């Protein structure tokens, strides 16, 4: 922690950056912090409650932040993949962001819960993490904590759905998606949703109806998840933002797994790796094509 605070103080006082985006202790648990003065650097913390993916604040749609100037951002390995994704897709310039990567031993599913990391409380996204020691960074901080327990809730759920009939799966998603109110919070919170104009807002033609009807909800989520294929870093900001608590992370995980299985691609920390839909291989599997 001290190491992080000292570094932030230094970066701010020598003018390397104008703002350090990190975590602080808020009135109700850990929240994102925007440190603009060296003397505020003591506020910075990092612990298992730091669930938020701060890379989302680098998204160029966030004009209130881009206008602050040059940014340093505290990331976990998983978040660093979002930064890499934004660099890969030319949303962020590598030279314009100072990446302060934290070695990570997993985070909680629900920030603010007074508990240790257990198989029940650790975030599902930490399962099988290969980025506990981040690879994309300007500064890497902390000691590598031990590997967290594995929360299998989501993989179990996906496996259970796979076992169902198509009709059962349809009904499951109808149930879940019928709650959607089309507020698009999932999109706004997502680090990788950076389109200047979202398909959902295109009106000529109106590809996706704007109302929260079952048909429009399904079209919207199908489209959103497809657009995130190969982009999604599984940070679950969409799920955290959803006021209706729809298990959006499950869709995202399923598609990410499909992309990995089919194209051997994982949204990784290497910005130079080509996005899976920008390239192809003549030997791509086509078992589903007649």
């Amino acid at each position, binding site marked *: 922690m001290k190491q992080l605070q000292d570094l932030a103080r230094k970066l701010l006082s020598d003018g390397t950056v104008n703002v350090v985006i990190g975590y602080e202790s808020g009135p109700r648990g850990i929240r994102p912090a925007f440190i603009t003065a060296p003397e505020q650097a003591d506020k910075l913390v990092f612990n298992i409650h730091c669930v938020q993916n701060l890379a989302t604040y680098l998204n160029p749609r966030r004009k209130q932040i881009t206008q602050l100037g040059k940014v340093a951002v505290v990331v976990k390995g998983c978040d660093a993949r979002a930064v890499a994704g934004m660099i890969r897709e030319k949303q962020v310039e590598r030279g314009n962001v100072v990446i302060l990567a934290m070695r990570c031993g997993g985070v909680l599913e629900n920030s603010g819960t007074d508990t240790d990391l257990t198989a029940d409380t650790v975030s599902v996204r930490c399962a099988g993490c290969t980025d506990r020691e981040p690879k994309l960074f300007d500064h890497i901080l902390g000691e590598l904590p031990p590997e967290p327990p594995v929360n299998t809730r989501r993989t179990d759920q996906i496996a259970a*759905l*796979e076992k169902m009939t*198509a*009709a*059962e*799966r*349809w*009904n*499951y*998603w*109808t149930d879940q998606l*019928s*709650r*959607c*109110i089309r507020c698009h919070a999932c999109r706004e919170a997502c680090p990788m949703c950076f389109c200047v104009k979202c*398909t959902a807002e295109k009106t000529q033609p109106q*590809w*996706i109806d704007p*109302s*929260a*009807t*079952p*048909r*429009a*909800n*399904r*079209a919207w989520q*199908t*489209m959103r*998840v*497809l657009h995130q*294929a190969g982009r999604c870093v599984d940070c679950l900001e969409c799920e955290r933002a959803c006021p*209706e608590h729809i298990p959006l992370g499950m*869709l995202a995980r*399923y*598609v990410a797994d*499909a*992309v990995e299985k*089919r*194209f051997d691609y994982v949204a990784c920390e290497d910005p130079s790796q080509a996005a*899976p*839909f920008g390239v*192809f*291989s*003549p030997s*791509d*599997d*086509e078992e*589903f*094509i*007649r």
Partner: protein
Amino acid sequence: MSSKVVEETVSSWSPKVLAFVCNWCTYTGADLAGTSRLKMDPNVRVIKLPCSSRVNPLFIIKAFERGADGVIVSGCHTGDCHYSTGNFHARRRFAILHDLLHFMGVEADRVTFAWVSASEGNKWQQVVNETTERVKQLGPFGGFGKREGGGPQ
């Protein structure tokens, strides 16, 4: 989806299938099937596009929303694309769409992907007839068209 609405399937219902085909191979192949007088189910409506890579997943969703019971997406065999690599890219997108539709509970037989070359009139006939037959088995697909009951409550 559990759409075997018995009352509807018994008598008059006949599936609507929408086909998105590429201009260069499948459309010509379908033309060949026609001029060869091959017998095909009349349930398929064809929309011609420049290339199978023009097919946006939203086309397929929209087709279902507006009442299609099945969709065919067809283009040149890989390696034969008029634009060299269009269908290679399309194939990647279709693969993920195919997987996601499966996960979200759309029966695989609702969406048929097929490569049909200009000389494969017979294959087009097969694709049309088999798709129609499978969609007939599945029954009407109202799922994507459902309008009421959205939002919480």
